[in-house]
């Protein structure tokens, strides 16, 4: 008997448990940015205003300006829970299901 998901569709293999990386490896990447004194002062001021470290601000900026498929994918994934949250507010269950299925076709190939 075919296993079905909560929408009555065949179970998606989008997440395969066997392929999950079971090693807890921290991937290290270094960021090198060259700044003038004025730029550095401005950068430090911004980090202080936001109450985060300079390292954290540099990382955030790098992630925000990321281009290509990974950048697009990250932006899409950051917005995904918000979209679900909006769909949760719809009262019609059929419409909810249809929208969720359409979302899968949108990000399923990523």
């Amino acid at each position, binding site marked *: 008997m075919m296993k079905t998901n909560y929408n009555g569709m065949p179970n998606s293999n989008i*997440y395969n448990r066997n392929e999950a990386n079971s*090693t*807890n490896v921290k991937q290290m990447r270094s960021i090198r940015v060259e700044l003038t004194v004025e730029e550095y002062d401005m950068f430090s001021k911004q980090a202080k205003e936001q109450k985060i470290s300079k390292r954290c601000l540099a990382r955030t900026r790098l*992630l925000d300006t990321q281009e290509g498929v990974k950048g697009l*994918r990250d932006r899409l994934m950051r917005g995904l*829970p*918000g979209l*679900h*949250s909006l769909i949760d507010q719809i009262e019609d269950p059929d419409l909810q299901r249809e929208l969720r299925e359409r*979302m899968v076709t949108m990000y399923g190939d990523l």
Partner: protein
Amino acid sequence: MATCKVITQHHDPRYQTGSIPKFHDPASYQSLVSYVLRDYTLPRECVGARSLDLNRAAWEMEQVALAFDKYEGVKVRHMVISFLGEDLMRMGRNKAEILEEVRWFAEYVIGFYGRSYQILYGIHTDTDHLHIHIGMSTVNYRTGYKYPGTKADYYAFQNHVNEWTKENYGFHVVFYTDKILDDTTGTDRNI
């Protein structure tokens, strides 16, 4: 008296002191979701989620954590709310009524974190005490920050839960974690 336990420790004797701490493993997403949804076998009326598609819950939680570059540390939070028989009798007259009421309660409870975190629940009825498992991603999808786990947040959540139970059923939920404190030093001790 209902209880709410926050799971933070390994209880499997195969995990020795010094192994990967609980929920730090990347497979935590899938293992928690599978456990909460009983390998996706729970009926539709016993499960629910906020900001998540139940069918791809683990995958979505993981992808959001990767997108925010928050893939380190504790990945998920697991809570269990368990009811005694006398609590359930206050919630309804028969099994169907009780289940419906517990479902309303679970929806209310996850609403506290559902505005900012991906969260899901599963109602398990296969034991003597009906209980709700709640699984939550530790990445705030609105701000991109990790779940702080502060006392203020913990007490606010307690108040949120107890407001509902006290008003509607007349009982309190007692909160505790499975952390065992060493009597002599007062520090955490892994089981």
